[in-house]
Each structure stands twice: as C-alpha cells, then as structure tokens.
C-alpha cells in the first residue's frame, strides 16, 4: 500500500470511530486536504519530469 493510500485509509478509520460530529467534520476535511496535497505533488512531479525530458534542454 502506498503511503498516501495508507494515510487516507487511516483517516477513514478515524472518521468512522470518532464519536463527535465536529471532529468527524474535521477528519473529513483533512481527508480532502490530503487528496489536494497528493494532487499537487503529482502535478509538480509531472512538470519536473516533463522539463527534464524536454528536447529544448538537451543541448544544455
């Protein structure tokens, strides 16, 4: 299991076991935050990869 999947799995478990409404809402928002972080990381890694393999830079 990837690190992010583990994190989302644990957050889901915390959400289910929490006995307080506002805390559940906080954990749900945290899950959305983690998804946004992962998306941002994937986008930036993709951009980095794209730039490293850009023919424009092969002569440098």
């Amino acid at each position, binding site marked *: 299991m990837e*690190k992010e999947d583990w*994190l989302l799995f*644990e*957050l889901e*478990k*915390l959400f289910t*076991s*929490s*006995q*307080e*409404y*506002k*805390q*559940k*809402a*906080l954990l*749900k*928002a*945290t899950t*959305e*935050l*983690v998804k*946004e*972080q*992962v998306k*941002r*990381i994937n986008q*930036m*890694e993709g*951009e*980095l990869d794209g*730039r490293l393999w850009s023919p424009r830079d092969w002569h440098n």
Partner: protein
Amino acid sequence: MKTLIIISHPEIEESSSQQYLLHSIPDDHDVTIHHLEELYSDTPIDVVAEQKLVAAHDRIIFQFPLYWYSSPALLKQWQDEVLTDDFAYGKNGTQLQNKEFALVLLVGAAKSDYQAGGKELFSMDELTKPFQAMAHKTGMTFLKTFSIYQFVYMKKKEKMTVLIDYQLFVTGDSEQSLLSREIWLLNQLKKTNVTTLGIGNEETLQHVIEMIEENRETIDDLKILLDDMN
C-alpha cells in the same frame, strides 16, 4: 484577530441553516455573534453601542438569508443608522479603515442559477455590489463571499464540509490558500479531543499529522526544484 458576525434573520430559530452555522462556530476563537432582530425588533438601534462594537473588531461579517437579492430590512436600517459620516466615512470617519469585511449568504436557489443565462441572470458578485461599494467607501478590504446554496437539500457529508469551510472562513487567514488551509487544519487536529477519537487512535492521529507535514515539505522541495529550472 477579533471577528464580529452580524446576523440579520427575522426567524432565526426556524432556520436550520442559521442554527447549523451558530453551532459550528468554534469556542476557542475570538468570535462575537450579534443577532440584530434579537436586539432591535421592537426598540431603536443603539447607534453608539453598535459603533463601539464594530470598532472593537478586526473582521466584520454580515450573515443573512438573501431576500430579493439583498439583506433583510433590519440590516439595511443598521447600515443607514450606524455607518455614519465621521464614523465610517468622511473626513474624520476612519473607524473601519483596514478592517476586513465579508458576507455569509444563505441562498434558497441553486448556485448555477446565479450566472448569465441562469434563472437568476446575475452572479452573486454582481448582486452584492452595494456591499462591495460600502466596504470600499469605508476603507475595508472586501473578502471572498461565503455563499451556501440550498442547505436543506445537502447530504450529511456536504453539511460537514460547510461546517469546516465556515469555521475556516470565520477564523482563518483571508488568503485561503492550500498552505493556509493546511496550517489551520493541522492546528485544529493538534487541539482535537482525543478521548472522542476511539481507543488507541491517538497515536494514529499523531502519525497522520506528521505525514501531512511531510507532504508539505515535499511540496516545498518540488517548488524549489521547479523554480531553479526557470
């Protein structure tokens, strides 16, 4: 930061959305709730007391249900009587300068109705121009509007999203970036009551916090690498 939420709603007890928001406000922040109809339904507005109250806060929020594309009547009356020359504007009217101002709107129609071509034709940014002009004239910074559309039709998880977004809107940084959201959420997670998390989950929560912080370090490192390539 001290936040003042001025609510105008003639039947607040009957409003499930207003009640939900009232119960969402975190106890550990400096937030003042000020319901106009509760105070001034039958009595004149105490202008001096209202001006003192506004002057003592950094972020002023008007929270109301949208009635004919504007606020309930008492909030308009409050503006007319409280935001006077030499208090809110004019040569000596500097009391509101550099404060933040925002709207929290409860809207009965769907979000998609508020646009060119939609049922309501105009966007919420267009309809709220008088409030934007008021903030401008009084020297306040107008923040993004927090609109809740069709609360009664929302599912449980959508309402949970409203709860946290509203808390963040009322108490958080006006910047509303991913980083400011991260900082705010981490702060809340560190303060949350571990006894309601369930047995043995305190350690898991700690691990979750650490991993979110690690993700932030990864984002920052990637940003530095990409900036270096420019």
